[in-house]
């Protein structure tokens, strides 16, 4: 089978190469230090974590949504919380031969 007089294997290889060359991803923009609500009530310090990996160089598994999930995880630890103040963010990573695993930690004072 040929596409435009080229063997399909060759076309597929070129397409794959192109995908590989431009392989990249972007996370959503996540607000981690919002403007605190008026007359805020402090609910205590909380910490949220989220994990993700880039497997085999190109495949992102839960990697791009880490910030959103870590922030949501932190808020979930203080029922009723709507935002965090006094925020600290840390990203740790681990290489495991088949890819890179990363852990994002967000901690802060939960408020509503």
């Amino acid at each position: 089978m040929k596409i435009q007089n080229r063997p399909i294997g060759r076309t597929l290889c070129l397409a794959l190469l192109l995908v590989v060359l431009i392989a990249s991803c972007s996370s959503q923009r996540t607000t981690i230090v919002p403007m605190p609500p008026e007359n805020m009530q402090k609910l205590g310090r909380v910490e949220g974590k989220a994990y993700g990996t880039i497997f085999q160089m190109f495949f992102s598994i839960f990697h791009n949504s880490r910030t959103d999930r870590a922030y949501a995880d932190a808020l979930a630890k203080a029922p009723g919380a709507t935002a965090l103040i006094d925020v600290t963010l840390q990203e740790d990573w681990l290489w495991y031969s088949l890819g890179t695993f990363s852990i994002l930690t967000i901690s802060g004072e939960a408020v509503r």
Partner: protein
Amino acid sequence: MNIKTKLITVLLSAVMFGCAGTPVHFSDAPIAKLDLSQRHKVRARAVGLLLFDFIPIGVNNRQAYAYELLKDEAGNNYLTNIAIQEVWRWVFIGHKYVTILTADAYPLAIDSKQILTDKIEALKTLYAGGEISEKEYEKARQQLLSNFLKQ
């Protein structure tokens, strides 16, 4: 430690290798004291490379560096609504990571009452030192009060 344990330790070290990133503490802005009518958008980005996926070059501190750049960009203004975006890209020799921080920067609200008080005090000092006459002092004081009430 026998040779087998040593071998396992070496293998595990070779198979799993990791690093801790620099913790970034985002300072809170004194919202009540800010002039919220004067918002400036600021943006900063920092890049890191994970060479061969395990040699970090500017990777572990890129969020901290981006935050420093963001504060530089804001100057004397205070930052709030700080948002983070992470972008990664495969670059043959590893992965490139980019951290983009955006925020709203606000200046401190000007306390016009305090400024008026300071100016009147300065006028009093000039008058007490004999540098201006009573007439000049009174005229300048009236001018300051009139400007303040017009605001």
